């Protein structure tokens, strides 16, 4: 029992980090459970979806259009880069609507506002983890075996998480005010998909455009993944963009997006219950 008076007001992070994580974890696991609730395949759907999409992309681009004929392990590359692109998109897609979707909780319960976007990121990480297990099996089947380079998956996943979360945080508070953000992001995400070497490889881009495409942090991430996981013979992101220093640009974009998202969210989130 405390006799210390606590000043009341909505908070972004709260004063209890354990509660913050417990809440985010609870929301994320519940959501994950509910997403496939009552479906026959259950969690298997998390795998069916990316693999089905991969199958389509592979048939259309590798087999019919015969792109990447000389790319080593091209199907494996499509699968892996697509998994990471979808992971990034899931964070932003779900982050965008998260505050509006949780209106009921926001207006009726006091809890740190950051819990809601955190739960979104956690949920996307669960899904990435599950998908990567299946992707790894596919890689083994394609004759790709683990190397030390695979450890690069971790920093790359962290950077993509930061980029996605930053954008998600920013868009979530903007979406409360402007419902246009949903179609805007939808179009932008489509463009980003084709601007990112997912169905092609970065080295297939004409040489003079190559450094420019890698200013896109997602493009830099999947290009580095190709070198680290799929084919050590493929150029690193630094090689494609021209130099290691140039990689600071996409890195700055990641950090900038994250900082901007955090700033916008901490500014707007305490007022969000009123504005919903």
């Amino acid at each position, binding site marked *: *029992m*405390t*006799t*210390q*008076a*606590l*000043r*009341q*007001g*909505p*908070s972004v992070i709260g004063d209890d980090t*354990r*509660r913050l994580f*417990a*809440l985010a*974890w*609870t929301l994320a696991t*519940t959501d994950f*459970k*509910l997403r496939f*609730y*009552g479906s026959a395949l259950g969690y298997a759907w998390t795998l069916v979806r990316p693999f089905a999409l991969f199958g389509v992309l592979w048939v259309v681009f590798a087999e019919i259009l015969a792109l990447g004929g000389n790319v080593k392990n091209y199907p494996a590359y499509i699968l892996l880069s697509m998994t990471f692109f979808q992971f990034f998109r899931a964070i932003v897609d779900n982050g965008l609507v998260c505050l509006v979707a949780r209106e*009921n*909780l*926001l*207006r*009726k*319960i*006091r*809890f740190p506002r950051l819990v809601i976007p955190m739960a979104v990121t956690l949920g996307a990480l669960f899904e990435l983890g599950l998908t990567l297990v299946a992707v790894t099996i596919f890689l083994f089947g394609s004759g790709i075996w683990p190397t030390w380079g695979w450890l690069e998956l971790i920093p790359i996943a962290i950077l993509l998480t930061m980029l996605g979360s930053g954008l998600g945080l920013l868009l979530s508070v903007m979406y409360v*005010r*402007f*419902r*246009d953000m949903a179609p*805007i992001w939808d179009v932008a995400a489509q463009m980003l998909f084709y601007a990112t070497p997912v169905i092609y490889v970065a080295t297939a881009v004409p040489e003079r455009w190559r450094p420019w495409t890698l200013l896109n942090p997602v493009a830099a991430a999947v290009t580095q993944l190709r070198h680290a996981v799929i084919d050590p013979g493929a150029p690193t992101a630094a090689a494609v963009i021209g130099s290691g220093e140039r990689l600071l640009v996409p890195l700055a974009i990641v950090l900038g997006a994250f900082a901007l998202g955090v700033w916008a969210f901490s500014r707007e989130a*305490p*007022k969000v*219950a*009123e504005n919903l």
Partner: protein
Amino acid sequence: MPATLTPNSTDRVGHIARAVPAIELRGVSKTFKLPHQRYSTLKERALHPLRTRTFEELQAVKDVTLTIDPGEFFGIVGRNGSGKSTLLKCLAGIYRHDTGTVDVRGRLSPFIELGVGFNAELTARENVLINAVMLGLTRREARARFDEIIAFAGLEEFIDLPLKNYSSGMSVRLAFSVAVQVDADILLVDEVLAVGDASFQQKCFEQFEELKRQGRTIVLVTHDMSAVERFCHRAMLIERGDVLEVGAPHVIARKYNELNFGRLVHTRTEEGRYGDHAIAEILDAWFEGEGGARISEQAQGEPVTVCMEVAFHAPIEDPIFAFNVINEPRHTVFATATDWREGPTGSFAAGERVTVRVRFENWLAPMRYTVTPSVARAGGGSDALDLREDLAALMVHGTRVTGGIADVPHSYSFERA
């Protein structure tokens, strides 16, 4: 119902120094900016960049200063849109108040509605664990108290049933038992009594009694004056964001009723008037208390006098004066006329005025009543000179529990065989 909820429930109050308030609000205000037209797309904003600047300021809560003591059951009442829920949300830390401070001592329940975040698809077991974490327990605590929560709700047989198969009464029992298990010293409750059937409400009442016995501080927002009078130690009336009064529950309940119904008094127009009122004209009607003062409300059981003032424009012999007292469902609960009781009333000259009074024991059940006075020519009473429907109103306040439309004096006797 289990007698003990938490081991230390009885000495809970003892821990808190009486002098230190549990909740302290100082000069709390909250303003909402309401755009005249809500623009939520970029196109609208782009097309009308200037118009979005015009918005209305709605001051939902104005400069509220208030202290609530530990162990107090405090009611906040007010009409729709009076700002009571906004105030509760400021208290709960859901809204950010613009000015002033809100200080809370003790663990405050973070929710203002029961069962928020319940998911109909999930089982009671999953919902309880999730809800307990949302309301402030750790996951371990939630698991440890799970059995206690289910036992308290009395739902042991149904723990693995999805919540969608629960009745509303069952869900509220579940919600309540989670809520009381979160160990909050201060509970904020918004309008729980507005929903649900009678048994559901009864369950709520029982739970309130239990919480009250445990000495928890409870802030209840409601429209239900009987709940306020039954549970609250003190209550507050809020209207358009202003605190009108803080005081004893029955005083506040009365003020609230006055606010709701008092305005209706003396607002009748020519509509509902019968007779040409060329010979006799009813000028006014009103109710009086024992002292002879005009009243618009009276406590149940206190005698009432109903009055009318009549002016005569032409001489007339033995006019009949009558009163009909009508309740809210439009039943005449009491009627009287001079020709039934008094006999001939005598002759009245042009220009004369008379005030007719009828005193009666107030057996009326708590409700709002109106009176229809009438003056008629001698005879059957059907030839109305003037009749004015619902000319005056009286609010009868409850002082005890009653059932029917009238509270007839009665006594009990028991004769054992």
